């Protein structure tokens, strides 16, 4: 059972690396959205610093959402999902491996890119650990929740916008906690409370969402 889990992880990794451009797209999107804001609100560093927590988080959230639209699409079209459903392994486990692989390369890359963009927005170096940690804890939740939406909309012709409509409201707690942690760090307050909350939400998402994703995929495949 666990061997299928690792095999699927390996397979997904291989697939992602055979098309590296798709890995880069969310990152470039993330950078562009961040770059739009100084152009829109003006380059004063004070203003940028105050809005940077929210900005980084909104941009990260949108980048993750964008990358999730195609999460199950190719598996749906080439019949892989059908094979998953008729296999003897629990679908929730397979799905967890798939999302984990996806997160490890898109979410994690986002986390690594964030400090650079944070610096450009004038975030002090002292806030970087909190930025990294909050994204590290928050992006898995974004990937997992988004995967629920992706599973439900995978069979639809134009699911992208619908996916955003379904999932963005569910992202709000993560947004509040993540940017709250960063704001606290900016004001020199301890951010540990926020981070602990984020961690418990991550644990909750890892345990519960695979079942919702699996149910969603079964519905989409069974249509």
């Amino acid at each position, binding site marked *: 059972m666990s061997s299928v889990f690792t095999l699927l992880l390996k397979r997904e990794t291989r697939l992602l690396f055979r098309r590296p451009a798709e890995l880069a797209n969310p990152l470039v999107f993330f950078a562009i959205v961040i770059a739009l804001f100084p152009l829109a609100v003006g380059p004063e560093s004070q203003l940028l610093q105050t809005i940077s927590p929210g900005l980084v988080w909104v941009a990260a959230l949108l980048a993750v959402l964008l990358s999730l639209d195609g999460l199950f699409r190719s598996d749906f079209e080439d019949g892989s999902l059908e094979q998953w459903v008729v296999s003897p392994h629990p679908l929730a486990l397979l799905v967890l491996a798939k999302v984990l692989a996806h997160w490890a390369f898109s979410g994690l890359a986002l986390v690594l890119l964030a400090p650079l963009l944070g610096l450009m927005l004038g975030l002090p170096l002292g806030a970087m650990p909190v930025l990294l940690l909050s994204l590290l804890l928050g992006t898995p939740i974004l990937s997992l929740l988004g995967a629920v939406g992706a599973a439900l909309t995978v069979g639809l012709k134009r699911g992208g916008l619908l996916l955003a409509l379904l999932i963005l*409201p*569910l992202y709000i707690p993560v947004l509040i906690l993540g940017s709250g942690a960063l704001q606290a760090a900016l004001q020199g307050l301890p951010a540990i409370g926020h981070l602990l909350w984020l961690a418990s939400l991550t644990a909750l998402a890892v345990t519960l969402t695979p079942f919702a994703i699996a149910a969603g995929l079964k519905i989409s495949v069974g249509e």
Partner: protein
Amino acid sequence: MNWTWFHKLGSPKWFYEISGRWLPWLAWAAAILVSVGVVWGLAFAPEDYQQGNSFRIIYIHVPAAFLAQSVYVMLAVAGVVGLVWKMKLADVALQQAAPIGAWMTFIALLTGAVWGKPTWGAWWVWDARLTSMLILLFLYFGVIALGQAISNRDSAAKACAVLAIVGVVNIPIIKYSVEWWNTLHQPATFKVTEKPAMPMEMWLPLLVMVLGFYCFFAAVLLMRMRLDVLRRESRASWVKSEIKSLVGKSA
């Protein structure tokens, strides 16, 4: 335990018959309770010493907000019943209740905003309750949009059920995080709906209105469900004869 009633509940024919008997009662109860509540709340309840007469909006805002939240929970419950026991009626209830819930959320938001103007001096304030209501409205839009987007109606019902269940697990998290975000950003704002002790002349009409709104919801839901049942079961012989008699009456 005897479960026959539960399976009977799943039979569309039985539902159609029993709901036809309940509907007039519910409709009358809703009409009477709401009109009594409105007149009582508007004309007879004493005015609030702080907010004056604008507080009378509470008699719509609070029942609508109550209903909006409980309808979403009902969606999730119907979703569980539909997914676990494969009861078709639960699917019907889920999809027919969602638009009503969205309208109730809209009423709660609108009255909240209008109420905000004399109270806070602005049409929209990012108050914790209003913000949660706004998010709830988005959640309703999601369920409705998903149901409309999937053409196969069984899959649509199942997908909506999954989404409603995920949403309902999230609602408390959203609510607490929004409340917490709110206290962080605007400490100690004046909360309209949380009065320490409301005198009886004030909350009694509120109770009447809440009951009236629930009856209203039940009546409208039954109306919508009955139509949907006729559509879905159009091949069944009892539906054919029912439609024949209804058509005969209207012609």
